[in-house]
């Protein structure tokens, strides 16, 4: 560490002065910048149509891919399925994550807190694909649940390859993200606030409604936006638990790029996905205000 500091002192004798914070931004901006370059290329190819006879892309630009995408019912089905799924998953996830995070933050027992944290992180180590595969084992026609149902004489139920299965898998996948984003927001609410609400006459539900939820708003919106965008663009859960019948936008894009090899049409779908996602997040931010994300100085700081 000392050696590192020594090198730093030689390379940066005055600590860089006022420019330092901006210089430290450069790596992050470069990474994001690369993404933008990729997006520009995708934008470019979205304007070129595939000639089905030669399998070459047209030289000149046209909006043909977009026209095709927006005239096919299939596109709307997929966008609607993705958007609706994202909203449902976000709402269910937040409802489940809130008490989990609250309990984790407020419990007096270090043991309970650790248990909750481990239960939260364990699925992280497994990864999305393996986890989805695990659900196949549990929910499949010859899976654990149907075996158990069989023992009491119930015919196997079709628990997989439908919309609820995808939603279920996504909620399960998103829960840790939501909890981890909510926990700091709830930690920032002093416990005294709840005692105060009680002493002023509020019961636990009124305290939740009038004090805890409004004060947790930045955390709720932040984790809501993260869950919403991650769900909207998810690939693995619809692919594995939907079994090809419940494709989200990302699955459709994958098909265009790697199955049909229509890079132009896939690019157009990508741009539509990016536009949809941006629109949704934009509406969310415009509704609640960027300030609610607790950027800048917090309103919760009294005195």
């Amino acid at each position: 560490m000392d050696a590192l500091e020594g090198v730093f002192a030689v390379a940066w004798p005055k600590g860089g002065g006022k420019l330092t914070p901006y210089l430290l931004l450069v790596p992050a901006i470069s990474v994001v910048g690369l993404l933008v370059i990729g997006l520009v290329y995708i934008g470019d190819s979205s304007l070129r149509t595939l000639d089905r006879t030669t399998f070459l892309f047209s030289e000149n630009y046209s909006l043909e891919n977009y026209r095709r995408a927006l005239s096919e019912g299939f596109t709307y089905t997929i966008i609607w399925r993705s958007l609706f799924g994202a909203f449902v998953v976000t709402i269910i996830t937040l409802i489940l994550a809130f008490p989990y995070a609250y309990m984790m933050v407020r419990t007096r027992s270090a043991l309970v807190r650790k248990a909750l944290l481990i239960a939260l992180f364990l699925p992280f180590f497994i990864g999305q694909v393996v986890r989805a595969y695990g659900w196949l084992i549990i929910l499949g026609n010859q899976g654990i649940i149907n075996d158990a149902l069989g023992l009491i004489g119930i015919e196997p139920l079709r628990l997989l390859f439908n919309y609820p299965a995808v939603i279920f898998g996504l909620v399960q996948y998103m829960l840790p993200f939501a909890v981890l984003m909510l926990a700091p927001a709830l930690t920032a609410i002093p416990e005294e606030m709840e005692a105060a609400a009680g002493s002023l006459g509020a019961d636990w539900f009124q305290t939740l409604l009038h004090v805890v939820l409004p004060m947790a708003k930045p955390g709720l919106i932040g984790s809501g936006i993260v869950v919403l965008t991650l769900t909207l663009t998810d690939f693995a859960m619809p692919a594995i638990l939907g079994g090809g019948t419940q494709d989200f936008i990302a699955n459709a894009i994958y098909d265009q790029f790697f199955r049909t090899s229509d890079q132009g049409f896939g690019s157009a779908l990508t741009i539509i996905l990016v536009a949809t996602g941006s629109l949704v997040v934009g509406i969310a931010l415009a509704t609640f205000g960027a300030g609610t994300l607790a950027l800048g100085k917090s309103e919760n700081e009294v005195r």
Partner: protein
Amino acid sequence: MQHELPHTVQEHASETFGPVPAVSAKAVNMRFGNFYAVKNASFQLEQGRFLTILGPSGSGKTTLLRMIAGFLTPTSGEIFIKGEAVNAVAANKRAIGMVFQKLALFPHMTAAENVAFPLKMRRFDARTIPDRVLQYLKLVRLDGLENRRIHELSGGQQQRVAIARALVFEPDLLLLDEPLAALDRKLREEMQLEFRRIQKELGVTTINVTHDQREALVVSDRIIVMNNAEIQQNAAPIQMYRSPENPFVATFIGVTNVFSGKLVKRVGDTASVLVGEQELSGQSRLGSSNITRFESGAAVKCALRAEQIRIAREGKPLDKTDFSFTGRIADVIFEGERQIYVVDVPGVSADPIRIFHHDQDEFATHHIGELVHVGWNTNDMHVYAGIS
């Protein structure tokens, strides 16, 4: 308004059984494992009084307040508010207003919304709420600032919102959990007087917790001093200051010199003691019940307040004092309105004696190293049992 309901019950009770104390604690213990946070605390507080629970940190004063508020349940013993056991009532149904240490104002509401909160929760008639909120904001002198968010108010203004919010629903009891501790001295002293004014204006029974002895003397009708989980003394401020019951109270309030000595004899209220090489006499606070324990030779502690000691230049002996000794000025501390002389008096005390100067003509005339006469009267010194 359901709010009115408890009152009728209480009025009924007071008619039947005579005046019920606003608050009473009976042999309250709070134990965590083998550690007593509060030990055998009993007291009664009359309606409309301002009580301060005073003590150093860790003395159990906050625990006692939290039990009165109902946030903690005593291990044994019981606390009654207007004759009703605190824990028999759900937290949000109690008629207790509380100003919290960190105020706990709701940052997402305006000053007026904060004050209206308890009225909405307690289902006051919605039409009367705005007027009532304004009336209480006026009481705390915040009219005109009702639409400010909490973070747009100064520290003192936030204190006032917290007071208005705790009082607006007309609680039977107001609890103050050291809300002034974080303020700077000038603002703190201003707010102490505000607390007193508002309390007198509304006549609400109030219990304040603090470690600030000056605050306790300024605001209260009654003071309870706590130390090591136990109530040391429960008295009116003047009585507490003039007749502390034990050396702890004597030294915790005011600036007090303590000498260790041995009892020579006790005659009535006067005790003769041997301090160093000197035989002194003082007011006996040895108690009357167990005289036999205090035979000649028993260890005693003598407490003498810094302002009771007179000081004069060498060669101008003090004439109106029962005792007089020669000492040497070790230090002079200037505190603005007063000056403290730290004087070595070898025959009496191993530690230097602290003396407040209160002779205006002689002000600032003694210097370090100077020889002086110091003296006091029998009545000024209190003699306590040696083991406190």
